[in-house]
């Protein structure tokens, strides 16, 4: 878990961006420490990409400030940008270059000194699993490999902050897993901001999540906090000969029992209480015919839908 004293790498305060009368992003603040992975969530058009463009200096905010490792992005853009690696939604690839040429170009553009450059390029290629295709033209690679080249480009100069805009979009499941593993590895040394709408991705990779909706932050907490956010913990129970609902609700620790289908029940219970043992004991004693018992945490999806729906109403 994150060290409380770790250095703050990204600090954005009150970022707003208007396009004409339309406010794409409204007073979004982000703070990230070294070694943290922040998941950036939101429905399409929530302002994720706009926020990322502002964090990387590609777009000037209408108001607000960004500092990267204490360097102000707008006063000292060159020094601040040297500490950022950015993979935009469409990887900025030159199709006519080979993978190695391209990553080398990215290293040079990010002012990696000549003696260290070859090693840095090799390292990025290895970490992204690109060594075998290093001499191929980028234009001939599959989408998955192109995505990896995009990530290699973002990490070759060992930036303090890596910002990835939907890094796993359009990849097959195996590639998605590889990229996730890569992102987790990155999280060990860099701060990572990751935008996606694939919710399990955030749960499996990120330390913290920030949900954006209509340009404002509607939720920001750790993954653990997220799980508790929506009605504590839950058990999904399947009983062939179910008792009355009241009997289930009477089990100590159970706050609420719901019948979700004929023989399926959802029991919510308070944090700290765990009615599982008691439930199993009663089920056996009274022959309820227990055939399913799944701990169901309130999923990110629930929270996400809850928050973004609520805002719409």
């Amino acid at each position, binding site marked *: 878990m994150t060290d409380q004293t770790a250095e703050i790498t990204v600090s954005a305060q009150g970022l707003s*961006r208007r*396009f004409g009368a339309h406010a794409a992003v409204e007073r979004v603040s982000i703070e990230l420490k070294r070694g943290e992975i922040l998941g950036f969530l939101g429905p399409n058009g929530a302002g994720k990409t*706009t926020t990322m*463009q502002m964090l*990387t*200096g*590609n*777009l*000037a905010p209408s108001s607000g400030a960004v500092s990267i490792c204490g360097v102000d992005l707008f006063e000292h*853009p*060159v*020094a*601040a*940008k*040297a500490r*950022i690696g*950015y993979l*935009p939604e*469409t990887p*900025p*690839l*030159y199709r*006519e*270059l080979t993978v190695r040429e391209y990553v080398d*170009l*990215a290293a*040079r*553009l*990010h*002012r990696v000194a000549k003696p260290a450059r070859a090693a840095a390029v090799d390292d990025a290629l290895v970490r992204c699993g690109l060594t075998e295709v290093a001499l191929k033209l980028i234009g001939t690679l599959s989408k998955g490999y192109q995505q990896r080249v995009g990530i290699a*480009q973002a990490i070759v100069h060992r930036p303090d902050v890596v910002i990835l805009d939907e890094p796993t979009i359009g990849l097959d499941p195996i590639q998605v897993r590889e990229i996730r593993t890569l992102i987790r590895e990155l999280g060990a040394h860099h701060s990572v901001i990751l935008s996606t709408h694939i919710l399990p991705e955030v749960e499996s990779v990120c330390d913290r999540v920030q949900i954006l909706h209509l340009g404002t932050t509607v939720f920001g907490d750790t993954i653990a906090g997220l799980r508790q956010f929506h009605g504590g913990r839950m058990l999904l129970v399947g009983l062939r000969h179910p008792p009355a609902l009241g009997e289930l609700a009477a089990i100590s620790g159970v706050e609420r029992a719901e019948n979700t289908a004929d023989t399926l029940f959802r029991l919510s219970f308070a944090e700290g209480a765990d009615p599982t043992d008691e439930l199993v004991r009663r089920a056996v004693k009274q022959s309820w015919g227990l055939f399913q018992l799944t701990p169901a945490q309130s999923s990110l999806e629930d929270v996400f839908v809850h928050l973004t729906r609520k805002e719409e109403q």
Partner: protein
Amino acid sequence: MIFTIAGKELKALFASPLAWVMLTFMQIILAFGFLRQLDDFMQIQPQLIRVPNPPGITELVVAPLFSTIAVVLLFAIPLLAMRLIAEERRNQTLVLLLSAPLSMTEIVLGKFIGLMAFLLLIIGIAAVMPLALLFGGSLDFGLLASLIIGLVLLAACFAAVALYASCLTAHPLAAAMIAFGLLLGMLFAGDAAAEGLRSRGWQVPAALAQVLSPLKNFEPFTKGMLDSYSVTCLLLLIVVFLILAIRRLDAARLRG
């Protein structure tokens, strides 16, 4: 850093068929023009001997050749420069440069120098052609040098205008059309205004209008004259359009 971008641009140019096609046709057109001038020169040579202090081969063959190159470059440079920013925007690769620790000035100058390196190659090849005449005669190297300097400045001028045009849009062909329109407009407007103003005796406004017309400012060089006024005009145009390009890119960041 500027040279990293310039090198990348040059590589991209040679990776596309455009550069090769351009070089080929350039060479064919120039060779044809050169031989025709040479042919004309051979025909009038007997009469030239009777003229006291006759114009040499450099004046009669090489100078017109360079004027032809100037006109060909007017068409070629918008096409060569159109991709510089517009295509990067369309392919969404400009982000790589904008996110890198580079200033807008470095990006624009890098692109400009990359294109200039290619143009120097074209001019270099063109300059080699007259050297073939050394087998049969002598050249006026002073005039040749002035022609080369003039052509480089002129090409830089066209390149700066075309680079600015490329910053205006995300469609390479539109960028080429804008560049071409801008250049032609400047040539005509500059010339017409200068003529009109001069005929009324307004020398200073006429001189200012003349700044706009790079081809007009190239003329003194074809006479072997390193006219400081023309040089200043051309340099001014280059600097102004490069600054406009930088400001334009910066504005895109602000406006989104």
